[in-house]
């Protein structure tokens, strides 16, 4: 349909049937970028939110905050270059020991803080959702009681008028 000659009429029934047949013949492979939650209401969209503590960047932080191994690793090999690197590393570590120690403590504190915040946010979000669900459930119960009462009232009205 990209290049339509000027006098060709597009039959919309054919177009719709074609789209349906494409989807019907390969439901798995046919690309649909929309997500199921597109059709849900706001509450369910929120329920589908991924917890922050499962976020990949938090995992990265957990894996990389500790510099201990880098500071103590002596390296391997007995060639002139390897021996030179070991001597240089000892000199740098000795000179900057206090700085590296503070840096290590800072990274540990940072990782712990972000971790703690992430878990707290997730807890709050879950509590929010639970509260919301409670409110909705209570509303539904109220509605069903109201409908029940209304039907009873109207039935008694009908019986009274019939009598």
């Amino acid at each position, binding site marked *: *349909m*990209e*290049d*339509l000659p000027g006098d*060709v*009429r*597009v*039959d*919309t*029934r054919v*177009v*719709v049937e074609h*789209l*349906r047949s494409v*989807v019907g013949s390969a439901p798995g492979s046919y690309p*649909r*970028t*929309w*997500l199921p939650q*597109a*059709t*849900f*209401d706001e509450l369910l*969209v929120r329920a589908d939110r991924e917890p922050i503590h499962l976020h990949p960047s938090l995992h990265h932080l957990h894996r990389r905050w500790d510099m201990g191994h880098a500071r103590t690793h002596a390296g391997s090999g007995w060639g002139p270059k390897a021996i030179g690197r070991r001597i240089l590393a000892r000199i740098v570590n000795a000179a900057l020991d206090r700085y590296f120690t503070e840096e290590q403590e800072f990274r540990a504190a940072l990782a712990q803080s972000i971790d703690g915040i992430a878990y707290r946010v997730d807890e709050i979000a879950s509590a929010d959702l639970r509260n919301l669900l409670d409110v909705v459930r209570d509303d539904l119960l109220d509605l069903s009681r109201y*409908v029940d009462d*209304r*039907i009873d009232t*109207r039935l008694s009205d009908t019986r009274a008028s019939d009598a």
Partner: protein
Amino acid sequence: MVDSTKAARRPEHRTRPHVAVVTRHWGDSGDEATAATRLVAGAVSRHADVSIVHLVSPLVPLETLRDSVFEVHRVPVHGARPLRSGILRVALAVHDGGLGVPATAASLLERYEGDAPEVPEVLERLAPDAIVLAGHHQPYDIGVLGARASAGRARVVALPYLGDDRRLAAEPVRSLLEAADVVGVVHPGERRAVLAACPGRSERDVVLLDLALSLNRNAASHRLFGVRWFGRYVLSIRDFPPGGARYVRSVTHEVLRSVVGRVSVAEVDGEQWRISDRENTLELPVSPSRVNLWRLMAHAVATIDLRPPGPFGRETIESLLLGTPVVVPDASAAMEHAAAADGGLWYRDVGELFDATRVLMNRPVRDRLAAQGRAYADAKHAQVDDFVARVGRIVLGEGAG
């Protein structure tokens, strides 16, 4: 029987034919059935004096009012129970889509619709030459209108506004169609359904009304303020006119925007209108009027109708008249217009909605559908004089119009 030959009962000053329109669909409501009834009544008023017999619930006293050129007789509907009727309908729909309505439930539903026993008396008093029964809900003894084609009977025209073909299974709807001399339908699908449900009825007696709509094209040529900054856009209608039926769960504005790529999305949601692209959203500070809807519609890439289907598909016809292709729900009046015009696509579910919208992002296809849709709508729904003449012939017989 309502007898049109009882001239003694007619006022002597009456020089034009007299037509009574019996309906629940009157007043200020912007719903499609009311709009269709007003269009038909307006067209009839060019040929005849028109009295509206307005069936009203909750209860009102019998009274006569003036509404423009129409004399409105308000008749109460007794014992209507809309709440219980709604509950039962929802329950039946959940069970099997409302297809197999048990006889007990059907009779209950009929009872819940109420009863307007004063209608025959009012019609007898009016002694019209023709009676238009607008809407499938006519809660009184249809038998008083007399048998079809019986001598001296006022001509009876039914406009059932079925909306859903399954209504044809209901006995009151069948009685209504059986009593009518002519059935006026609002889209080709309704005509097919009526002919299938009434095999004995001649095709000539089931007539397409092809309702004519007047659009202010001059006003529509001006974009709404601020819309220009958003470039090309699709228009999604979630609720219009404000306060109408809407789905609680629907396609979100944001997801629709992700489907149309670089094209912006304008949304009409009751009184909240907005347009947004990837970065910016503008709440449109306009009154939610039909003229403003045309101004959005006329410049849109496509109109996407997200509402529960109505019986007439008015906004679809308007969009086609303005040269904007449509994406509309399947099995609806809107879909019938889109298919007859080859002016738009339709969907059964959200996935198909997005597929259809993506197809319309293809410019050659979109331009072709726009041209086809406009040609159809101009021919069928823009010729007001033809519509007035057609309605005159349908309601008053071949001699009129």
